[in-house]
């Protein structure tokens, strides 16, 4: 076992972990933050996407020890003071989800897309979401959700 200290959604968390413990299992099993999902075992689906020091990463492909001393934001950390993040609002407003399983990872990735490019074209949004699979929506409303969020974030 080894000790890790990871800032998760603004709270410092110190735990003893197995060196092989995946970051996603640290979040889900050790901390009980079950909003981050596991959809595959080959890092294709993106359901496990979280922000690691601001970068969107697949938490199924990192060990918890690799996040030691760093900061992680999960879907649970997006809403502030009971107010949804504009990206969350976009997904709700534009029906960007059906079963909701890919949604946390999708929202996290979409946030990063807008931080890199606040006013993306549809093609840029679609390219940006290549690492996240959705089986329900056909992506049409996810694209609209991201556009909605982009427009709202530009106004603020």
């Amino acid at each position, binding site marked *: 076992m080894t000790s890790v200290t990871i800032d998760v959604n603004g709270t410092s968390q110190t735990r003893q972990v*197995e060196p*092989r*413990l995946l970051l996603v299992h640290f979040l*889900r099993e050790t901390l*009980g*933050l*079950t*909003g*981050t*999902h*596991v*959809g*595959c*075992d*080959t890092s*294709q*689906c993106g*359901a496990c996407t979280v922000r690691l020091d601001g970068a969107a990463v697949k938490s199924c492909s990192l060990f918890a020890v690799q996040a030691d001393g760093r900061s992680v934001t*999960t*879907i*649970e950390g*997006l*809403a502030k003071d009971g107010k*949804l993040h504009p990206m*969350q609002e976009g*997904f*709700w*407003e534009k*029906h960007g*989800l*059906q*079963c*909701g*399983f*890919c*949604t*946390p990872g999708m*929202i996290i990735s979409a946030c990063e897309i807008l931080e890199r490019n606040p006013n993306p074209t549809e*093609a840029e*949004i*679609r*390219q940006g*979401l*290549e690492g*996240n*699979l*959705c*089986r*329900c*929506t*056909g*992506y*049409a*409303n*996810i*694209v609209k959700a991201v556009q909605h969020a982009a427009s709202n974030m530009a106004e603020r």
Partner: protein
Amino acid sequence: MAATERLFGSSIKRREDPRLITGKGVYVDDVKLPGTTYASFVRSPHAHARINGIDSSAARKLPGVVAVYTGKDLSAGGVKSLPVGWLLPNIKLPPHLPLAVDRARYMGDAVAVVIAESPYVARDAADLVEVDYEPLPVVTDAVRATQAGAPKLHDEAPDNVSFRWSLGDKDKTDAAFRGAARVVKEHLVNHRLIPNAIEPRAALASANPATGEIILWVTTQNPHVHRLLMAAFVLGIPEHKLRVISPDVGGGFGSKIFVYPEECAVTWASRTLGRPVKWTAERRESFMTDAHGRDHQTDAEMALDADGHILALRVKSTVNLGAYLSLFAPSVPTYLYGTLLAGAYTTPAIHVEVTGAFTNTTPVDAYRGAGRPEACYVVERMVDLAAKELGVDPVELRRRNFIGPDQFPYQTPVAVMYDSGNYAAALDKALEILNYGAFRREQDKLRQQGRYLGVGFSTYVEACGLAPSQVAGALGAQAGLYESATVRVHPTGKVTVFTGSHSHGQGHETTFAQVAADELGLPMEDIEIVHGDTGQVPFGMGTYGSRSGPVGAAAVHMSLQKIKDKGKKIAAHLLEASENDVVYEGGKFSVKGSPNRFKTFGDVALMAYLAHNLPKGLEPGLEAISFFDPGNFVFPFGTHIAVVEVERETGKVKLVRYIAVDDLGRVINPMIVDGMVQGGIVQGVAQALWEEAIYDENGQLVTGSMMNYALPKADDVVTAELARTETPTPVNPLGVKGAGETGTIASTAAVANAVLDALGPFGIKHLDMPFTPGKVWEAIRSSGR
């Protein structure tokens, strides 16, 4: 409909979403219980092998391992075969044990299960279980499996055939072919697909040794069906002691209908150990063990007269069932397939023969559309091939053969009676969106420049809400196909609706509340929808075959009428009026002509529970249960148009445009329906262009992960242009048809027709899907043009 109607037809934002967009949804793998142990399955790496022995001693010695069970342990513990829910005449039903005993029959067949204190230890220990396999000859192709000398899977089916089934008038069909001016023939392969709901299957069983009660959280589309089948057939435990909870479920597409080995094994293990046991599939397990879809090989022949009227259709399909019969496997390539072969056309004679064969592959069962996409593909491809053969525009040939709007109800030659339709109206609307004439001119122009655009049509008809139960039973269903709904009015006038339908993305918590709120004239906030828990919902058949709207919501509607009827009795008594003079509107029971003499819904609800002043003989309480068993299927229809461009140099097919005009009857929530249609279209497009399950000659699943099975990504597709016509169905009181599968049913054929249209200049008549660049490039190259 009530005059107070206001939510029905509105794009209300979903009530499910606040929890799902904040990470507060609860899926099976999110449920945590103290003392939980974790299961990992040992699976056969061989597609076919004798099991000469299993040595689990090394696994048992690993610290943290609680138990290792084999198929023999389960059999000794009373575990029986998984059941089959649809029986055809003379069907062969070899047993399907949750853990294979003596022989593994497909790659991934579970042979043992390890239970440990942590999932990591369980996985480590599973690798330590030593199985002595003796590989046996393998057959993966269904046609090959039925031929002499093929390896045999089951003693019960020595020719690997589970069933031979036919439908339609053979003599009439043969006669029509003899008199035909033109006959078009083609061999059509509808290849195998892997469902890939993004949430892997999972099960958590918690048995209480003191009470004998078991709670099973499981990713199921039909929790009551799971409970009944597991209790009565597999585990032999009292049904009332098993509670099945299907919480938030991350997509199903059919793959979560069936009772699988894993939930049976963990439930048995939890009873045996007296501790909770959890299993969550890894994606590689989803690929290997979630029931696959499609896998038909078909010889189709269409007979036409000189004017292009279809005279007859003859279809012979050999369908791959996989290694075992999955729960509804027999119904999918038969009654859900053969009955749709008339399509939208007046074809007077149809005959279909289906042979269902066992092979050393993952079991095949219902996958989004289930039999209907296969039927649509046969019909719509054959119509296009006929149009080409006759030199008639494919739109014109369709129009010439459409069932007319004045011909409903329409009895097809393949058993079903279409309830309603106006096929030309949907086609016209779609053509208008496309601007067909302009498209053809543009296509010609671009061809001169070496660019190859194609347009494909699919003027589909599909069937949802399989019914009625009596007919389904006569055809072999081992279940009723009604749906139940309980409406419980609380003393404060708040309402809980318990539905037997199950939402795994469809948004019932919103749409069913819209229906209930409208009928009761109450705000949606006063209505709660409960589903997915056998401990709360009295009974249910679940969600598949696009049945939640036409059957499930209709059952809710029935119970609401009963609530209003009883409410009227109470209100009439309180208002000292005749029951016939009481009207209910806007949440108030009032006396006809005296709107100021009223009792609110809440007043009446309170009195129903106080029971201080009720009509003589009326029971207290305000609650109703209904079982809606529709008189028929409903038949959504429409026209889908795909526009593609084929790149000559690479063979790459690009989806350029997609237009869908669907008639789904009345629509409860257009936003939700459009969302399902968009998603369904992409799933069907993906079959035509990318997705394909491939086994090698040894039965190894080559496309066994998301790295080599081409699921559609955001960048691969376009947003479809959607429109609707609205022909309400008379089959249910809401006038709604199903909406969940139309996209998938229609789109595969539309894209295939578009690709072949684009390839017309190369003289390519037909290619089997998926139209991968290599295949298309090779076909262009071979054409020599």
